[in-house]
């Protein structure tokens, strides 16, 4: 019983923590932030919190001080805004309620299954434990693969420690929350009624969920942050949000920074997304400058921190020299292996099986919209990247592919849900017209 109560407290604690800053600070009715939905605001708060945690981890600030500051600010703001709340106008948000229900259901699964994946037992758990036991960032050099980013495990340790400081899986419940939030966030883009949106969200959970995702691996965080970024990227193609472009850029940069510090490949995904937005949108000069400067700051920060803490990429992991020797037959052999496994694993991922045919259909059937170009460009960059990473990896490429290609493919799969959103929002009404004309 105690564990169930702790799980419920954990979910409420996550909600409490991510109610700051946007939801509480923003009370001005003319504000541009009000164009965002509740899920968007929670996503923005989450991005803000994770960035705060990132800087705390880098500056070795004890996480309890972050918690204290947050709690004091939130309580103060709740009191400050108390009179402004119109309790009569509060409506039950069923969409959000279903989101919470799924977070709790997944939490039950996590609490029961408990087991860690291989990589978690060897790498990720040690990083989480490091921060849970109040060790400094430098101490990570004592563990294997110090070049792997730490932010995902810092989030794990933060919510493991607070509020109840007991079972480690309580920290992983945050992953479940971020996952459900991201799915309910992307389905919000659909121009259908709330019930249908919920149905789509649940179906997307059905397609993607299995416990292995929450066994301490970081891929689910990459998947979720990419989904949240996709949602805000989608707003660039919506007329309603034209005046919000600068805010959207800031949100995307915040999310890009998180992605860079969750897994190494996250850097590439983040910049592929930003690059695709850059080339498919007619941004005004101010926004272009913000996007480029922000991206450069994120990259520089990563390089600076790597150099500052003397972190080096594992040289045995990549074989740049051998690959750049251009042994034609070896490269050909590798391309053959990569293509073979790509097809195999691609067919094992239901999201790709569903979304890529839809993407092909809307590309060839209808005139190309900017948002469709956005998806296609990302697809090209994404798949080129998959080929490149395995070409650069050591000669025993087949073992590596078997070990992690399925997960690499999964990380970006959620992004392609945009194809279905484009189809439903732009072309679904054409089916109705056709049917009526018949």
């Amino acid at each position, binding site marked *: *019983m105690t*564990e*169930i109560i702790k799980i419920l407290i954990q979910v409420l604690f996550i909600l409490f923590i991510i109610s700051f800053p946007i939801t509480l600070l923003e009370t001005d009715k003319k504000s541009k932030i009000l164009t965002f939905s509740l899920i968007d605001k929670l996503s923005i708060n989450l991005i803000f919190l994770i960035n705060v945690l990132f800087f705390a981890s880098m500056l070795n600030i004890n996480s309890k001080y972050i918690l204290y500051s947050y709690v004091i600010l939130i309580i103060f703001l709740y009191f400050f805004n108390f009179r402004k709340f119109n309790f009569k106008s509060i409506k039950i948000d069923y969409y959000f309620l*279903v989101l919470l*229900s*799924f977070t709790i*259901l997944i939490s*039950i*699964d996590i*609490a*029961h*299954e*408990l*087991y*860690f994946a*291989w990589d978690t*037992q*060897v790498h990720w*758990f*040690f990083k989480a*434990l*490091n921060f849970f*036991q109040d*060790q400094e960032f430098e*101490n990570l050099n004592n563990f294997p693969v110090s070049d792997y980013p730490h932010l995902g495990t810092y989030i794990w340790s933060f919510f493991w420690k607070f509020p109840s400081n007991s*079972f480690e899986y309580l920290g992983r419940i945050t992953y479940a929350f971020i996952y459900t939030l991201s799915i309910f966030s992307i389905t919000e883009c659909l121009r259908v*009624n709330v*019930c*249908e949106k*919920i*149905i789509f969200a*649940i*179906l997307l*959970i*059905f397609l993607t969920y299995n*416990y292995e995702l929450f066994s301490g691996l970081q891929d689910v965080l990459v998947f979720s942050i990419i989904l949240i970024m996709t949602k805000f990227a989608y707003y660039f193609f919506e007329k309603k949000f034209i005046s919000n472009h600068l805010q959207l850029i800031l949100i995307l940069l915040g999310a890009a920074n998180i992605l860079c510090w969750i897994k190494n490949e996250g850097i590439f995904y983040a910049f592929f997304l930003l690059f695709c937005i850059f080339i498919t949108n007619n941004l005004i000069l101010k926004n272009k400058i913000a996007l480029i400067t922000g991206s450069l700051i994120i990259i520089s920060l990563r390089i600076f921190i790597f150099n500052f803490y003397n972190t080096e990429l594992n040289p045995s992991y990549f074989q740049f020299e051998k690959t750049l020797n251009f042994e034609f037959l070896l490269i050909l052999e590798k391309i053959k292996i990569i293509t073979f496994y790509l097809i195999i694993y691609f067919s094992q991922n239901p999201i790709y099986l569903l979304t890529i045919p839809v993407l092909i259909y809307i590309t060839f059937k209808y005139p190309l919209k900017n948002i469709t170009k956005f998806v296609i460009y990302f697809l090209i960059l994404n798949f080129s990247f998959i080929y490149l990473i395995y070409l650069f990896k050591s*000669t*025993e490429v*087949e*073992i590596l592919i078997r070990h992690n290609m399925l997960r690499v493919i999964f990380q970006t799969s959620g992004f392609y849900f945009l194809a279905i959103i484009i189809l439903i929002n732009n072309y679904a009404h054409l089916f109705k017209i056709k049917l009526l004309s018949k």
Partner: protein
Amino acid sequence: MAKKFKKNFGVLIISFLILSFIYNHSLFRKLYNIFVINFESRLTKKHGYCFRESVGFLRMLKKKYKFNFNPLIVNYEDAVPDSGWSIYDNHNKIDKNHKILLNYPKNLSLYFKPLNKVFYSEGTVKHSNGISNIIFDLKDEHIRIDSKIKIYRKTFNKKEIIIYEENFHRLVENKQIIPIEFKTKKINSIFKPTFIEISDLSNNQIEKINSIIVNLNHEFNLKNFTIIEKFNNCYYVK
């Protein structure tokens, strides 16, 4: 009316989907288990008490002996990662004098089957410090070998890593223990298969060999330590 029906129908589908999710993942049973089985027992059930990662044994030791150091953990089970994570403490230093040997086998050996002109072992070994002896399982009473024995492993780009290579001239009897005593750690690998090649052996001679067993020496021999705690083949030694 139609709108209300559509809404109710939507709610019905959502309820059905949520229930399907609960049913698919057996969440009611899992919820019940969380109520009745405590965290430690559930964790042990998943990672094993004295099998696989043997997390149960490790956590029992940590609780019982209140470690103020991180012991050296050696797991002989090769299909699982190291289980040190389950009792590791950043506040403590590593003390290699205290060892926990998990899934400790009585004998370390590799079993080789004939494969064309060589002998091939699918088994792997992690914590050996060399070869102890070799046993030939023959179809006949004995066989004469005047040749060279080579034990090696192949990397994925087909390079040979030679573990042992010596001349071998003797009359070998069926299941006779032939001492070798050769120290090497190259025999330890959980990823790649091992081969034995006996050069100049005719097809007829190869056919007479059913299998070859290579017995290995333990890197951590129990005889050299004091056993503090034991459960099946899991040991805490000093």
